[in-house]
């Protein structure tokens, strides 16, 4: 009996050891052990216009569906190391295919959507836009909108614009934009308008002079203000001013600083609209208004687009599919991060993607890892 008991104990101890051994083996199998040595190394030729950090490495299948195949590390001096996953296909891809270092841009997943699917989506989106435009036109010209919604919406928009215009962020953006304006361009604009202003002012010289003087002295006389407004309206109604502005303004509007001002204004306005306590109840009232619903704003095309757009963009082939490239890009954009990725392409894939608007990446030179 004693011997049986001893044997029993030994077997039990062995069973425990086997179980704990299994746990140790599982730990070695699943726990991350660091990146180790890179499988391939490149250096960016020219300036490095990307943040240093880590980014995923993707390959494309025969159907251009992306597969995550490794990890890349970009240093501030432009050295790019590629670390392949253990899968032999990944190792081979990292070793042999040409890498493209790309910003996490929506154009990347869009470029690998097959042409026929992109055309379908464009067609569907066009139909939806047309339908929404028609509904919008009907809505804007409807009497119920003009009576029940337009006044409140105008008030909300006015308030939002005022708030955006007076916000410190906009002020800073404007200040930065003003500091970067080219003095000669400003002079050019003023020089074109000034003769027309003088011409209009001369027509009623004494009235103009009086209005200016009283305005400088701080008068709030309504008649004077109206006279000034009348002068301004006449100047800006002149076709010569239109022609001059059309010639001199575009350089202002397309400058980076002015675009930032526009973006800041749009963002601040949007925030102010959302912050307005009247916005959401108004929207809710409109969307449930039978008069609005009778315009059939949600067409079959719109429903189809909503249904297929995420699936087509993600290119999900079955219910539990996963597109690591599309989700990485979308999440990077949503988090407002600057990320990058490396796309490994074979010569055939390069040819297939030649016309698909894949954004350009910097030239890379292979180094010894």
């Amino acid at each position, binding site marked *: *009996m*004693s011997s049986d008991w001893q044997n029993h104990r030994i077997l*039990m101890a062995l*069973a*425990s050891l086997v*179980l*704990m051994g299994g*746990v140790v083996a*599982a*730990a070695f*199998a*699943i*726990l*991350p052990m660091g990146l180790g040595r890179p499988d391939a190394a490149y250096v960016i030729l020219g300036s490095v216009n990307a943040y240093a950090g880590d980014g995923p490495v993707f390959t494309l299948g025969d159907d251009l569906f992306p*597969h*995550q*195949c*490794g*990890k890349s590390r970009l240093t501030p001096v432009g050295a790019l190391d590629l670390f392949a*996953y*253990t*899968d032999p296909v*990944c190792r081979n891809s990292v070793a042999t295919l040409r890498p493209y270092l790309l910003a996490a841009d929506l154009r990347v997943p869009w470029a690998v959507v097959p042409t026929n699917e992109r055309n379908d989506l464009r067609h569907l989106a066009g139909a939806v836009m047309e339908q929404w435009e028609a509904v919008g036109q009907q809505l804007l010209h409807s009497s119920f909108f003009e009576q029940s919604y337009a006044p409140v919406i105008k008030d909300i928009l006015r308030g939002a614009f005022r708030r955006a215009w007076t916000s410190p962020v906009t002020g800073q953006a404007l200040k930065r934009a003003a500091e970067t304006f080219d003095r000669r361009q400003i002079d050019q604009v003023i020089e074109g308008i000034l003769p027309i202003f003088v011409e209009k002012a001369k027509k009623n010289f004494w009235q103009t002079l009086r209005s200016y003087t009283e305005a400088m002295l701080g008068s709030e006389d309504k008649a004077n203000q109206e006279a000034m407004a009348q002068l301004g309206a006449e100047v800006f109604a002149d076709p010569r001013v239109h022609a001059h502005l059309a010639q001199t303004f575009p350089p202002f509007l397309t400058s980076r600083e002015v675009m930032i001002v526009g973006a800041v204004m749009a963002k601040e306005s949007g925030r102010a609209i959302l912050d307005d306590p009247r916005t959401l109840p108004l929207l809710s009232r409109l969307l449930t208004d039978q008069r609005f619903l009778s315009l059939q704003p949600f067409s079959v095309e719109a429903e189809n687009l909503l249904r297929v757009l*995420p*699936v087509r*963009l*993600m290119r*999900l082939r079955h*219910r*539990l*599919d*996963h*597109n*690591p490239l*599309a*989700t*990485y890009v*979308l*999440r990077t954009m949503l988090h407002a991060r600057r990320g990058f990725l490396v796309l490994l392409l074979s010569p055939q894939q390069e040819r297939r993607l030649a016309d698909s608007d894949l954004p350009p990446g910097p030239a890379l030179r292979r180094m010894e890892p």
Partner: protein
Amino acid sequence: MSAVPGLTVDSLTITTPTGKVLVENAKFSLAAGEVVLLVGPSGSGKSTIIKLLSGLLEDEGRPWQVEGALTHGGQVHDLAHERCDIGGLVFQNYALFDDLTALENLGIALDHSDHTDPALMEYLLDLLADIEPHQTIASSSGGQRQRLAIARTLLANRPLLLFDEPNSGLDPATAQRLGVLIHDLCRRMGRPALIVAHHVDDILPLADAVYLLDSRTRTLRPLPLDRDAVDEALLAVGEVEEEGIVIPSPTAVSAPRASDIPARWRRRMKPHHPQRWFFRYLHEYFWILWGSPLMLLYIFSGAAIVGFVTLWFGFNYELLGDAIRSFIHDESLAGLGFVEGYIGVPLITCILLVARNNAIITADVGNRVLSAQFLAMRNLHIPGRRYLTAAILINTVVGALVLVGASLVVAGWTSFKTWQLLFHEQPFELWQENFFHVILRDPAATWRNLFWVVVKVLLSGACGSWLAIRAGFSRKDSVIAVNYAIARSIVMGVTVTLLIHAGIAVMVY
């Protein structure tokens, strides 16, 4: 072995914590080798005198009041102020340590004995002739247990042998053999024995003196060594034997058959350092509390279920559209990895551990209390409470840390396999990078989070087992009391574990 001198108890007065006087101004003496029988009605205080002389009279809230003096070998002990454990006690229910073998029951007493006498072995061998050294207590007969208990008490090498109802529950033949055995031992060793018994027929012919504890007069008075006189006295105080038994002569009692068993005992009965018994209990509780394969399977099953459930239901439910599932894939994996690693698995593992181990600890300690094993340990000068408490606490804390670590691996592995079922076309590293995203992203935060996991596990392990030990050591009068203590221990342990984990999780994350 030389005979020890006799002893005398003088002017003994015992008052219970409730104020009841059991005996007043009593006096008795025992000469070397003398067997003295103490009789009296139930509740008269016979066992109290035994406990007093074995140092086991415990205060329960209010103190016992004892007066009197014990004289032994020229030394006088003031019983009012000194705890006197001059007597080695053989308990009524034997109080053998049933987790130890026969050999270990004697070995632990030998190793904790103040001084060992080589001559004792010869007396022991007579008692153990039919008991295998590695025999378990559960497989021993009533007679064998009785003799093991006597042998264990002899190893304590005390000047006085005390027997509390030694013939209770034994069949007449075994009881008679026992009486002869005690008589023979006392004579050969030259030590006195005081026997408390209800049924005196088996022992009376072998006794040298009989004392009656009269609960009416609260006195202790000698009786003639005559069965009729004893019966008459017991009848007068309300206690009488039901029937007479024919007493055999000592020579008629059959001794255990000779075999090679004594040689085995002789080889194995060697004194060792007492500290080894702490390691013995450490090993025992290691096996019980976290080392056995069944325990590992139980804990790993819980971890595997957590790993499966979090991944499966995290991704595979209809509320998520297909595109959303893919879109949130990386962040979800990172979130699930975080929740599993820092909250879910430690919590579930600790709950499973505490629930299971608290039941075992309280049951184990509670049964030892109920069967007077801790009293026996104290009588044998074995620091049993310390050994067990330390062994349990060390094992629960270390075991919790090891098992939570292993459970994290098991849950992680199960999560990976579940993820592979769902996303079978994706590479392993995609799971690894995202599941361990929090760890990989910020090692400093990982160490901080792991520190809090360790704190949670240590606290819940220590608090859970401390509550279990407390529940186990509380007073036990019946099996029902043990059962209630087990239930209380589980509820309190799990509640405390939940509070610790929830509190730290809310505070830290």
